[in-house]
Each structure stands twice: as C-alpha cells, then as structure tokens.
C-alpha cells in the first residue's frame, strides 16, 4: 500500500505498523461503494450520504433486492458508486419510477435519491403523490438549497437572502417566494410513516443520519409506507465557500429554516 509512506514521516515505524493491522480495523470503505472515484466536488455532502446508504445496505444485507432510482442533479451518476441495480430517472420523476418498481416488485427495496431541485421543484407533484399513496419506498432528499449540477441556481429551498447565480442579490422572498419546507408538507400526508431531517457535517450528525437511513429501509421492508429522510446539505461549490465554511454556514443559517430532527415517526 503506497499510502503507508506518508504515515511514516513523523513516526516510529513500529508503533504505526502495530496499529495498522486488519484485526484493529474499526472503520473503512464498504465494498458496496465502488472503486470509481466520485465526481463530486471536494467536500460535497453527496459523498457522505452515498457512503452511509451503501453502508446501511451492506449492513442490512439487502444489496440483492435493493433498487436505487437516481435523480437528475449532481447525484445523476449515483449508479456508478453504489453497487446495486439502478435506474436513472428524468428530472423530478424518481418517485414515479419508484412507484412502478414498488408495485411490480413488491419484494424489492426501492429508494429514490433526489436533490432539492429535483424533488421540490420540478418533481413536486410526483413526490407528493408517491408519498400520499404511501408507496413502500424510501426517499433520500439532499437539500443543499441550490441547483448544484447546473451551476448554482436558486432552488425552491434556497433560504432568504442566499446568493445564487439566479438570485445574485440574495433570494428576495417577495419576488421569488419563500424557502419551501417540503418535508413539512410530506409530514402531513397520510402515506408517509417517517419523515426526518438530518445532516452529515459532523461525526455526530453522520451517526444519526445513518440511523435514519436504516430506519427508512426497515420501514420499506416492513411495508409501512413512505419514509423521507431529508439531509440538510452543503454545496460548497455552488455556495462559493470552502467545504468547512459551507458546513458552518449551513449550521448557522440553514438549520434555522430547516431544523434537524424527526418530523414524523409512526
């Protein structure tokens, strides 16, 4: 392993070698995450969420029955990174595809992975109706308050005053409308069994987020209805910040509008 060289620089060789032993391994990339490097910008939240989904699928041993529906958005290539069967949907329509898969393959475990433009703008109707029908699917919703893929335009979830390439002076709610708390809408639909808002910017939130993903998959297998996990996320590139700045900005500004926690769990 070529990496070892760097580890040795400031260290006694013996000590590190002692530690870096298979028996001592406590965490590493799940094999369900493919070796293809992810195309995301450095520090992008998508990567963390991908990793967590892969880990949960792996841990639950459901890779053989899980079918992912990829969005149009930065996560369009999600299928290259998690080693399960995938369908790439048209922009916003992932819940429609997932509906059909759920109906036609009731024994499978279907999830959609969608951005805020995909889920909360063009896909609003498909999202609401899949949830309202209570499709047995999990919806993973990456809310980074921006259209990452197309170069940082305003999303329905962009918060007040936030600068994007289509709100260069900051979102003016009087002109462009209010940040859409779509998860709150989904909460009051009878078809959803679990709606939660998570983040992945700190070790603690990552651990909680993973639990939420697991619960969503468990609900799906238990045919409890639709589970929605919103990840309040960053798009450091679109926000024009460093990844760390973006995390801080998110915690400071986004969480006010999108407070973390379970909105519904039944």
């Amino acid at each position: 392993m070529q990496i070892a060289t760097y580890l040795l620089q400031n260290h006694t060789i013996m000590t590190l070698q002692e530690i870096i032993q298979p028996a001592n391994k406590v965490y590493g990339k799940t094999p369900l995450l493919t070796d293809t490097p992810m195309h995301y910008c450095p520090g992008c939240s998508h990567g963390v969420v991908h990793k967590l989904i892969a880990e949960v699928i792996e841990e639950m041993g459901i890779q053989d029955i899980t079918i992912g529906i990829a969005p149009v958005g930065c996560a369009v290539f999600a299928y290259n990174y998690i080693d399960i069967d995938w369908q790439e949907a048209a922009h916003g329509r992932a819940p429609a595809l997932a509906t059909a898969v759920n109906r036609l393959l009731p024994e499978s475990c279907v999830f959609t992975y969608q951005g805020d433009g995909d889920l909360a703008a063009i896909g609003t109707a498909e999202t609401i109706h899949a949830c309202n029908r209570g499709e047995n699917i999990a919806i993973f919703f990456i809310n980074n308050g921006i259209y990452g893929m197309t170069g940082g335009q305003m999303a329905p979830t962009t918060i007040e005053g936030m600068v994007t390439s289509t709100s260069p002076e900051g979102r003016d709610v009087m002109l462009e409308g209010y940040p859409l708390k779509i998860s709150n809408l989904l909460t009051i639909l009878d078809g959803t069994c679990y709606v939660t808002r998570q983040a992945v910017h700190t070790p603690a939130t990552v651990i909680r987020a993973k639990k939420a993903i697991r619960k969503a998959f468990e609900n799906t297998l238990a045919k409890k209805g639709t589970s929605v996990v919103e990840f309040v996320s960053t798009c450091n590139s679109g926000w024009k910040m460093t990844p760390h700045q973006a995390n801080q900005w998110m915690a400071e500004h986004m969480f006010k509008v999108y407070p973390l926690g379970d909105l519904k769990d039944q």
Partner: protein
Amino acid sequence: MARNKGAVVVNIERCKGCHLCEEACPSDVLEMNQQTNAMGYHYAYMANAEACTGCVSCAYVCPDACITVYRVKS
C-alpha cells in the same frame, strides 16, 4: 512519546483534499499534504500521527470514503 492508540490510512487517490477530516479530528492529527495526487488535490495525511485515538470522526465525515481507521483495543 505517548503510545498511539489509533491510526488512519488515507486512500490518496480518492482523496480530494477537502479538509473536512482535518476539521473533524478532535486531536488535530490530519493535515493536507504539500504534494498533489493525480487529480491535483492535496491529499490528507497524518501530520500528527501520535495524537490519533482512532475515534473515527475523520472517517465519518469524509465524503469520499478515503479513510480507514485502526484502533488498538486497550
């Protein structure tokens, strides 16, 4: 010198030098290397290896699943 309880191995070629592991590490173990990898990124490395406790914080937040963590059970 204190005995290490943990260590991490960074997959250099996957690493994008995002600094998030560095920020997440409670023990200030990680830094970005001066060198860049093939993608042109300054990858993370253990600048302060002896401080590593194997707490996995860095690996949890790493978006590119670059970090393998080892810990000696004590």
